[in-house]
C-alpha cells in the first residue's frame, strides 16, 4: 500500500541552525501538508501546498518556515533558524481527494 515517507525520523539540532525535513508524498496525490505536534499538545496545521504554491498557512508558519517541492517527488519543510520552541513532531501529509494520508513524522529536538 502506498504511503507517505518522512526523513529523518529524529533530528537534534542547535538553536539557530537550519533544518530541512523531507517528505515523499504518495505519487498521484496533489495536495501536500505539514503539521506539527508539540509534545503533549494537539496536532497543529502549518501549511498546505497545491499546484506548486502555498494555498494556506497558519500564523505559526512565519518567515522562518518555507516549503518546497523541488523535484516533483519530494516535499520539504525548511526552518531557517531554529528556536527552542520549534521542538516538536512534524507530520507530512498528502491527499488526492478527501482523506489525508500522514507520514510517521520527524521528531525535531532543538537544544
Amino acid at each position, binding site marked *: 500500500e502506498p504511503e507517505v515517507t518522512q526523513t529523518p525520523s529524529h533530528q537534534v539540532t542547535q538553536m539557530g541552525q537550519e533544518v530541512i525535513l523531507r517528505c515523499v508524498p504518495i505519487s498521484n496525490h*496533489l*495536495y501536500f*501538508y505539514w*503539521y506539527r505536534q508539540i509534545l503533549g499538545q*494537539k*496536532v*497543529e*496545521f502549518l501549511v*498546505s*501546498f*497545491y*499546484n506548486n504554491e502555498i*494555498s*494556506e498557512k497558519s500564523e505559526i508558519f512565519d518567515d522562518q518556515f518555507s516549503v518546497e517541492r523541488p523535484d516533483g517527488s519530494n516535499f520539504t519543510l525548511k526552518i531557517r533558524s531554529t528556536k527552542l520552541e520549534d521542538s516538536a*513532531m512534524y*507530520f507530512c*501529509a498528502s491527499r488526492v481527494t*478527501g*482523506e*489525508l494520508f*500522514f*507520514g*510517521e*513524522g520527524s521528531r525535531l529536538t532543538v537544544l
Partner: protein
Amino acid sequence: AQSVSQHNHHVILSEAASLELGCNYSYGGTVNLFWYVQYPGQHLQLLLKYFSGDPLVKGIKGFEAEFIKSKFSFNLRKPSVQWSDTAEYFCAVIPRGGGGNKLTFGTGTQLKVEL
C-alpha cells in the same frame, strides 16, 4: 474557518467498559470527518472516516462513530475497550470540495484503559 471541540480531555476506563468520546465541529458547509488514534510514541493512524451515506461508520479495531448532522457531532464509540486501546484520540474535520483545504484537529482525548 472550521473548528473542532473534544470535550473529554482525559478518560480513564476499566477493561471491558464501553467508550464514547465526544466530538463537535463548527463549519457552515459540508465536511468530511475523521477519527485518528495516536498510540504512545507513535504516529497518527486513521481509525475511521465519514464522507457521506450511512451516518454510522465502522472503523478498525471495533471502533465506530455516528455522524449526527443536526448536532454537528461525530462521536466515537467502542462497546468494550481493551488495555491496548490506551492512546490519544483526535477528531478532525475538513471541508468538502475545493482544493487545499486543511484538516483541522480537535485537542485530543487521552484514553487510559486500566486492567
